[in-house]
């Protein structure tokens, strides 16, 4: 019997190792990060001193864009190496990116230059692990940099571009079926019906992947509320989720699309990569996303076949509000072993080569003085959307979110399954109240 108990403990211990492995050298990392913080603070303003000839060595650049591993990213590095031939940049793309980065953070092993997604890391984490950017001259030229500020209000990452939420559509399908760009919700639904009737998908959701549904609760809820700070106000209310609230209306849109039958045949089976391929092949009419999707939507479609318009979330014929905010950002890790090379690459991506990087990624400019020339941006502006700046999540809000373990994407999936928004919200309100209580 004793033997069996020991063996059980061993098995348990093995199971334990898997989940504990990432945090076990926690104590060791305290001292090293503090040292790094000191050196970073001391050398923070030395950015003018970098000299192309001096900078040499090897750094790592990390991104979530696995699809660009062998295409655009090496091209950026090749361009960079023309100026800095002695720096070797290793490109690392990771599929489950944000989770992997958290593990790297805990082991103090962040890539030198890494992609920062808004909302995935706390302000404390950014302050602890990234180099503050306030002393770099070009950092002052950025819009939305406040979103990536740390708990000490310094800036820890800069956006590679700006994004806005709207509808990416296939112009070829629209002209083939004689559809004009919809200005009201009813027009959008009837456009969707026409496209669906032609044997294609009217409006794609990629609901299986989950994250493409984020636009409903993130940006559309904001625009319906007319307030970029809408989500943070949820933290003040014990039962903020009602069908009539902006969040409820945003999910109501999703429900209306589902009931009109303009989504995929079975949205919850629709995954990101397959539906993306369908869009390229001209089998999808519309997709609610940001402009960053357009470069991925090409071939065989050309840049002239794809358009971008603000989502008509109501039936008024007025210019629509759109949520505008930063796209992904880049930051430099404090634990870098080669600060000069890291700085050189960061500057190249964010300053000297900003416009060309932004253009190839399909991002609107997030800089005051640098323009990025992309055709669909002009079309989007022609509808004179009223831009609503996104505000970053407050600590009070993220604390409740984490405590209650709220996953809005799953909530959106539930709306697609049952269509019962009230029931989903009731459960959420209970969790919310409990999380606020502690």
């Amino acid at each position, binding site marked *: 019997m004793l033997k069996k108990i020991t063996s*059980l*403990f*061993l*098995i*348990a*211990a*093995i*199971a*334990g*190792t898997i*989940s*504990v*492995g*990432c*945090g*076990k050298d*926690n*104590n060791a*990392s*305290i001292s090293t*990060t503090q040292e790094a913080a000191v050196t970073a603070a001391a050398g923070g303003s030395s950015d003018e001193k970098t000299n192309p000839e001096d900078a040499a060595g090897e750094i790592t650049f990390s991104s979530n864009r696995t699809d660009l591993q062998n295409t655009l990213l090496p091209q950026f590095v090749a361009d960079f190496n023309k100026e800095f031939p002695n720096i070797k940049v290793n490109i690392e793309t990771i599929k*489950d990116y*944000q*989770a992997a980065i*958290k593990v790297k*953070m*805990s082991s103090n092993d962040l890539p030198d230059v890494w992609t920062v997604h808004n909302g995935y890391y*706390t302000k*404390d*984490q950014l302050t*602890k692990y990234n180099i503050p950017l306030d002393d770099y001259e070009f950092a002052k030229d950025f819009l939305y940099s406040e979103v990536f500020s740390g708990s000490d209000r310094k800036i820890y990452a800069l956006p590679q571009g700006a994004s806005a939420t709207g509808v990416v559509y296939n112009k070829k399908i629209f002209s083939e079926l004689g559809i004009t760009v919809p200005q009201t919700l009813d027009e959008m639904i009837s456009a969707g019906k026409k496209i669906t009737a032609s044997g294609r998908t009217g409006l794609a959701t990629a*609901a*299986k992947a*989950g994250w493409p549904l984020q636009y409903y609760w993130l940006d559309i809820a904001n625009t319906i509320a007319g307030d970029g700070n809408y989500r943070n106000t949820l933290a003040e209310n014990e039962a903020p989720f009602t069908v009539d609230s902006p969040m409820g209306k945003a999910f109501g849109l999703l429900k209306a699309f589902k009931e009109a039958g303009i989504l*995929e*045949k*079975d*949205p*919850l*089976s*629709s*995954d990101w990569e*397959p539906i993306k391929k369908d869009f390229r092949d001209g089998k999808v009419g519309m997709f609610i996303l940001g402009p960053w999707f357009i470069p991925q939507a090409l071939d065989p479609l050309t840049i002239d076949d794809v358009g971008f318009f603000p989502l008509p979330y109501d039936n008024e014929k007025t210019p629509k509000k759109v949520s505008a905010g930063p796209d992904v950002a880049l930051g430099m890790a404090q634990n870098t072993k080669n600060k000069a090379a890291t700085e050189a690459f960061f500057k190249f991506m964010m300053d000297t080569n900003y416009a060309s990087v932004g253009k190839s990624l399909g991002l609107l400019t997030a800089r005051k003085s640098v323009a990025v020339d992309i055709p669909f941006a002009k079309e989007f502006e022609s509808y004179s959307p009223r831009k609503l700046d996104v505000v970053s999540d407050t600590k009070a809000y993220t604390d409740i*979110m*984490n*405590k209650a*373990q709220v*996953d809005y994407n*799953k909530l959106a*999936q*539930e709306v*697609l*399954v049952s269509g019962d928004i009230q029931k989903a919200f009731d459960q959420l309100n209970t969790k919310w109240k409990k999380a606020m209580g502690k």
Partner: protein
Amino acid sequence: MSYKTQKKLLLISFLLIPLLLMGLFFLFPFFRLFYMSFTDWDGIMPDYNFTGIDNYVEVFQTPDVWVALRNNVIYILNGVLQNIIALLFAVLLTVKIRGRNFYKASIFLPFIINSAAIAFMFTFLFDFERGPINAVLTSLGVEPVGFLSNLKIVNFSLAGISLWRYTGYTMILYIAAFQSINPEVYESAMIDGAGTWQNFIYITLPGIKTIVELNLFLTLSGGLQAFVEPFIITKGGPVNASNTFVLYTINAFTQFNRYGFAAAMAVVLLVLVLILTAIQKKLIFKGD
């Protein structure tokens, strides 16, 4: 130095390194996990507070955790089915039939395929619009099935994958157990006039009792720890329909920065496995 001291010294020096490694990689992390389960550590920042048993109280008060555990039950029941099928194959393939090694190999093969590859393969097979299974169903005039999108079906689809994958392994264990039974026992039983069925019930089953026990333990702990399939294929979705206990634990850390809570869940899982195994022993094998 006497022979005895030499022997002891040799034993200690040989055991020292493996024991140290075990302590470092198994025991230390385990106790560390236990310790962290009483804190509100977010898994990254160096500072944390002690929260006592708050995490444990919360584990028991969160309904989603128990929904996830209910999904694990499907994996366990599926594991029982897996044992029955494996036993059947084992019996069939111990009989001298033509090409039995080929059959053995092909049933065992799924076990050695990388689990991520399996997951991607089944994502394709189960696909609603492009999947071959639905293509066959549609051509037969049957409505296509949402293997991964129907909330009531998704767990069975995923558990089915692990059934397909682990049957071979369980079968090999049974075959090995069969071969350990002395053939003379069968001979003498035959002389006494026992039939195939009696042979199986009175000689084979008691002979492989320890292996059945082992397999059921593996089924139970495997079922409770199931996560690879939902992790790669559905991410616990749609909604929370295919969430399992371990997947929920992982998400508590990766998605919601709650390492302490996740650690508490891991400890609860360990206790669950211990209790259920004890009950299983008492009920099915009447203890020994």
